[in-house]
């Protein structure tokens, strides 16, 4: 704005603060009064104001392309079922109870693996964090384990534990243990030694020290580890269920593959996605509740 100025004095200059600058050489009539201060209109370089529900734009666009493609017949049914077919298949699967059965089998596996892994990771981290000997014994092996993907251990685990439930739960446990251990241990090591001194002057017992100083101090690290652990549990679940299972979402999808039912496969994918989102949301909620004493940028 304010690039065109006629020879006459602009009347609406008062309304528009960004009036012409007086230094223009071709300005015929000299300004009768000093021009109002020019407001600099800076160029905005940041991304600008947030758009409400902006996160939904991408997914909705994908869904739209998928729907239009299916309706117009551009997408082959054998490669990708139409969205409405996926929905009706999901409804069918829920109505005859198959989806719930598989979901329950999967959840049970994931939860028991998660429970064992979290417990083991936590205990190992505490032992390694509270005693030098414990650290010497435990830390090395866990770090070595960390560099071997749990999924690469599956052949060995199958030889040792067969293809039954225990192999599946152990695979998940091993995947969960590592992030819980690493982050809890890190949190423990990060506890300020001044608090240790404080606990000594207050004559806290070993248990009191653990309960009031060590565990709360390591909690932020533990919860971060838990978030990674939950993701890892679902990841391991997908793989073990497709190895050799007779139940679970992965099995349902594997079976659907042999019959070329892309709609069932898609239902499985959606369920996996929802499970991941839901569990991460739960851990984050727990994080916010448990760490309300913190005032950090992130929270």
């Amino acid at each position, binding site marked *: 704005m304010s690039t065109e100025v006629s020879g006459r004095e602009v009347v609406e200059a008062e309304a528009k603060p960004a009036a012409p600058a007086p230094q223009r050489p071709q300005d015929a009539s000299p300004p009768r009064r000093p021009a109002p201060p020019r407001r600099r209109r800076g160029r905005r370089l940041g991304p600008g104001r947030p758009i409400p529900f902006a996160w939904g734009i991408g997914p909705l666009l994908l869904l739209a392309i998928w729907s239009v493609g299916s309706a117009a017949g551009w997408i082959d049914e054998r490669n990708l079922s139409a969205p409405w077919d996926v929905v009706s298949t999901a409804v069918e699967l829920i109505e005859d109870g198959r989806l719930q059965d598989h979901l329950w089998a999967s959840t049970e596996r994931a939860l028991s693996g998660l429970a064992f892994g979290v417990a083991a990771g936590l205990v190992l981290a505490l032992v390694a964090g509270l005693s030098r000997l414990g650290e010497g014994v435990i830390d090395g092996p866990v770090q070595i384990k960390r560099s071997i993907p749990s999924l690469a251990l599956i052949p060995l685990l199958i030889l040792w534990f067969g293809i039954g439930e225990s192999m599946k739960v152990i695979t998940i446990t091993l995947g969960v243990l590592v992030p819980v251990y690493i982050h809890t241990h890190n949190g*423990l090591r990060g*506890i300020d*030694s*001044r608090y*240790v001194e*404080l606990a000594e*002057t207050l004559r806290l017992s070993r248990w009191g020290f653990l309960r*009031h100083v060590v565990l709360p101090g390591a909690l932020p690290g533990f919860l971060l580890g838990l978030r990674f652990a939950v993701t890892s549990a679902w990841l391991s679940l997908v793989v073990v269920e497709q190895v050799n299972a007779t139940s679970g979402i992965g099995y349902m999808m594997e079976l659907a593959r042999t019959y070329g039912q892309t709609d069932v496969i898609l239902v499985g994918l959606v369920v996996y996605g929802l499970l991941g989102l839901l569990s991460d949301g739960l851990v984050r909620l727990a994080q916010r509740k448990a760490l309300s*004493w*913190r005032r950090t940028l992130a929270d």
Partner: protein
Amino acid sequence: MATHSGGLTTAPAPAVRITSLVREFAGRRVLDELDLSIAPDEFVALIGRSGSGKSTLLRVLGGIDHEVTGYEELTAPENVSVVFQDARLLPWKRVLDNVALGLPGSDAEARARTALAEVGLAGRENAWPVELSGGEQQRVALARSLVRDPELLLADEPFGALDALTRLRMHTLLKQLCARHRPAVLLVTHDVDEAIALADRVVVLDHGRIAADLRVDVPAPRSPGTARYAALRDELLTLLGLDPTAGTVPEPADPGASQPTDTTPKNAKGSDL
């Protein structure tokens, strides 16, 4: 801590008795055959230049120095409380729980409430430590120390990080609290005026030994205007190696600036965690 024997209750036995205390850090002598005794309910201020061993002595008495090099006698009461320079509140515990931390008995919470009211923080029981100002945090730390009814209160520059006005308020509060609870007190400070204002006795530490031990005989309202106050102040400043006659009276080493250079072995030993 080595011998935290409960003092025998014969006659007015001193609360603290130390003879020939030696503490070395990697061969360097920080406390050198030091002798000191403190009577019950006596308020002793410990001053000295940075590196003179003040904090080291306090840590030995507080039982947080686990590697004392040697001593002939080291007697301190069973019940010792420490106030650190930082309030050192556990950030994950609310104010009341910080005060009650480690307190035995079912009335722990009630006693903690009373202690908080005593330092003027009634009503802030459920605040998080981060929500308090520096002065308020240090008052919580005082409440945490006094709720334990210590026979010996150790304070390591407790007001060093506070602004001048807050520090004066804290002096008054500490005086009141000590008059009521009557613990023996050892206050480490850089501030000569703080020492004169609060203490019955000022001990000057130099190179790990007691260089001077002066009774504060300034009459009751210890105002800096009186001649006795000025004389004592000059004497202490001279002992600290400052020349009180050189122009304007020099400030006794800005406490904020010189703290980090103290020889406290804060990071000398690694965390046990």
